[in-house]
């Protein structure tokens, strides 16, 4: 049995001025060369555990720590993040705040220079790390010209360049489209296998990373609730924490099948072993009869050409009907955010026109940007606070609210002008757990029922499948697919749900898929 790389013994930590511990009695070990996923709802202590493993807790954040937590034999109570940096690379949530230099090469050189490496070894380490992470072509770029995905890879490379034994990542795929997110997870798995680096990764989209994981640590209420391999974790989650179960696991659970699969491949194998052929794809539903109504928003042949830059939109046309629940999907840089800004009127198209029948409300990616006052009550008024589920918390400073609370409040801020023809949301589910996504879907459905056209730009296919009645897929600045969720997501490759992959597009959500599978099972038994 190898010596554990990290071990915690009844480790408890409370942030300065906090009334309750953020981590309580955590006991665990991390073995060298393992790939561990940290699961848990928002506020369960995932980020704090990562910050403790890299030494930011308690050295940087203050507060009080009890018990023991050591990494590579160094106690985090005695050794700060600088000392632990030699054995532990860390990438926190916001990649923009992770990058400290102006150029990519300088960013990768910095940790090595701090470690006192020679110029020759620095040059070699930078080159090799860049190649391993597929960012060789970015080495001479400026960091402020990189996309979110590129910035994320550079941050990981900077954390990896000293070849640490342990790599810690806090929601690294939250800003990435499905393609880039999958690529990143498999890249981490390759680093784990080729270099023997132990990876600990906190993530909400478990379906994306469980297939690569050896083990899952689930946190609940600041304590460790489950420590098991992926399949055992899913069995536990299905019964004890349904919010953490992946769509494939929920599909099996609802259909009465076991064991829960950790990947699409396992799910397909499970169906085969149960002698259930994937259900035949149902004909896609015709999108909407409401399209005959006059649109709330009409985009006609819109072009957006940036001076000395790329052409973001290329003659895009789109109608949004009142009461419609639409989602806008596409890879990073496809033009989703630009289209939303155009519809709101924040930017003007270089060609084409936008028609609106009334006010348009737009919630951009960072809800905190909307909150300008000292008290929540000053932002949205008493009714807005109630709708945001913040009744009685009007005196709270918006900065002290959780991410989900801030987002609900910001949504009420943009809706506070009265009736709106359209409500647009840009990546609202980023970093959200399922319960918060369900709350958001409910509020958006209410807005649509009140007559507003709701358009949500998202990478989250599972959210799209449960919320939308129309899916618009953008690519290269034009609409490349537009139809009902079953039509677009059921036939997608990357832009598809796990359940659609398992059922060959016959169903999108676990509930739909389980119904079909039960029919098949009953048919087989009969």
């Amino acid at each position, binding site marked *: 049995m190898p010596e554990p790389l990290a071990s915690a013994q009844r480790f408890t930590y409370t942030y300065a001025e906090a009334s309750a511990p953020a981590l309580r009695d955590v006991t665990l070990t991390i073995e060298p060369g393992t790939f561990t996923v940290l699961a848990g709802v928002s506020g369960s202590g995932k980020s704090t555990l990562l910050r403790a493993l890299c030494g930011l807790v308690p050295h940087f954040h203050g507060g009080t720590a009890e018990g023991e937590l050591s990494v590579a034999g160094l106690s985090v109570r005695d050794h700060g993040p*600088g*000392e632990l*940096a030699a054995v532990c690379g860390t990438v926190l949530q916001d990649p923009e*705040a992770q990058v400290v230099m102006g150029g990519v090469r300088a960013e990768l050189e910095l940790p090595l220079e701090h470690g006192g490496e020679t110029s020759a070894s620095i040059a070699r380490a930078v080159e090799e790390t860049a190649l391993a992470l597929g960012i060789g072509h970015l080495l001479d770029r400026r960091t402020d010209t990189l996309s979110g995905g590129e910035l994320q890879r550079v941050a990981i490379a900077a954390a990896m360049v000293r070849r640490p034994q342990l790599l810690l990542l806090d929601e690294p795929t939250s800003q990435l489209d499905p393609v880039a997110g999958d690529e990143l997870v498999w890249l981490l798995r390759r680093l784990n296998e080729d270099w023997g680096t132990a990876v600990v990764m906190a993530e909400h989209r478990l379906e994306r990373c469980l297939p690569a994981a050896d083990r899952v640590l689930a946190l609940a209420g600041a304590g460790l609730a489950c420590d098991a391999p992926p399949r055992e974790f899913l069995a536990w989650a299905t019964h004890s924490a349904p919010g953490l179960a992946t769509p494939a696991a929920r599909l099996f659970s609802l259909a009465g099948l076991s064991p829960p699969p950790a990947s699409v491949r396992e799910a397909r194998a499970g169906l085969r072993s149960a002698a259930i052929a994937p259900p035949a794809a149902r004909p896609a539903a015709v999108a909407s009869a409401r399209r005959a109504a006059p649109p709330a928003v009409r985009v006609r042949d819109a072009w957006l050409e940036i001076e000395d830059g790329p052409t973001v939109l290329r003659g895009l046309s789109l109608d949004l009907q009142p009461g419609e629940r639409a989602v806008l999907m596409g890879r990073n840089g496809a033009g989703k955010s630009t289209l939303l*800004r155009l519809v*709101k009127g*924040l930017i003007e198209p270089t060609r084409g026109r936008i028609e609106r029948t009334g006010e348009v*409300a737009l919630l951009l990616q960072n809800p905190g940007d909307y909150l300008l006052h000292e008290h929540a009550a000053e932002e949205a008024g008493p009714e807005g606070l109630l709708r945001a589920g913040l009744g009685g918390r009007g005196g709270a400073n918006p900065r002290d609210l959780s991410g989900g609370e801030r987002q609900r409040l910001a949504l009420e801020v943009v809706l506070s002008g009265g009736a709106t023809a359209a409500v647009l949301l840009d990546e609202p589910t980023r970093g959200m757990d399922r319960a918060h996504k369900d709350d958001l879907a409910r509020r958006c459905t209410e807005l649509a029922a009140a007559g507003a056209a709701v358009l949500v730009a998202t990478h989250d296919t599972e959210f799209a499948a449960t919320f939308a009645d129309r899916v618009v897929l953008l690519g290269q600045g034009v609409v490349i697919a537009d139809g009902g969720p079953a039509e677009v997501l059921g036939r997608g490759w990357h832009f598809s749900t796990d359940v659609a992959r398992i059922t060959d597009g016959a169903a999108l959500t676990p509930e739909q898929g389980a119904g079909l599978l039960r029919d098949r099972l009953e048919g087989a038994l009969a």
Partner: protein
Amino acid sequence: MRFVPTYRPRPSALHSARAGVAASFCGALAFAGALDQHPLILGAALAGIALAAAGAGVGREVLAAMRIALPFALLVTIINPIVYQEGNTLLFRGGEVLGQRVDITLEATVAGALAGLRVVVIIVALWLMSVAVDPDALLRLFRRISYRSALTASLATRLVPVLARDASRMSEAARCRPQPAGRLAVARTALAGALDRSVDLAAALELRGYALGGRPERRRAAWSRHDIRLAAAAGSIVLLAIAGRIAGIARIETYPELRIEIGPPELALAAAIVTLAAAPFAGRAARLGVARA
């Protein structure tokens, strides 16, 4: 047009030279402006900066600096004659304000305008440095000299663009509110967020091992033709400015009467500064990515 100076690699002599030399060149032009108050020399320094900026391909960026420098210059020009009552040529008799006589004289006005021009020269020269000298290389140099100062500079250089982007996002969000928020509210919130941002950046620096205090190894590389030309130009500008001062060239008296000497020595000194500032950019151009060619 950017209001935050941003470095971009370009195929120019200034961009290709080592950071210390390129910064010294910009510093020499700022020094020439700071040392002298003669309008011809200040004008020469400004013209030198403009030519260097054009030669380095950052003319537009440096023009943006004027939008920040000119209001400062105007402020100095206005305040000086109000504060200083000296000078024999009365332009405006303002009477008494709070028991103080306020008379505007030609001499105080010109002195204010020249001080303003000096501010412009210094700001524009430093702006040229910000857009044409790689800040990473400069910080690396600082880390070898003063570790703690470099830490502060690292935080500051990274914080400026991050805060500018935050402010831009917040201002966009403010436009999405049904009753758009004022600029003051946005600026106040952006500044309040600066503390959080600096904590995030400080945490990132900690995680990159900044606390270990390792100093970067000196990188030995042969001097390129750009290094040699720029270093020679920078040294010559500084020496000329000092020599001119010692020799009493470009003398100027503002009080009690305005006396500005303009003769062959002043013209020669000004022409020399302009020529030296432009000289490194003459001849074969630099190539992008071949910094030491």
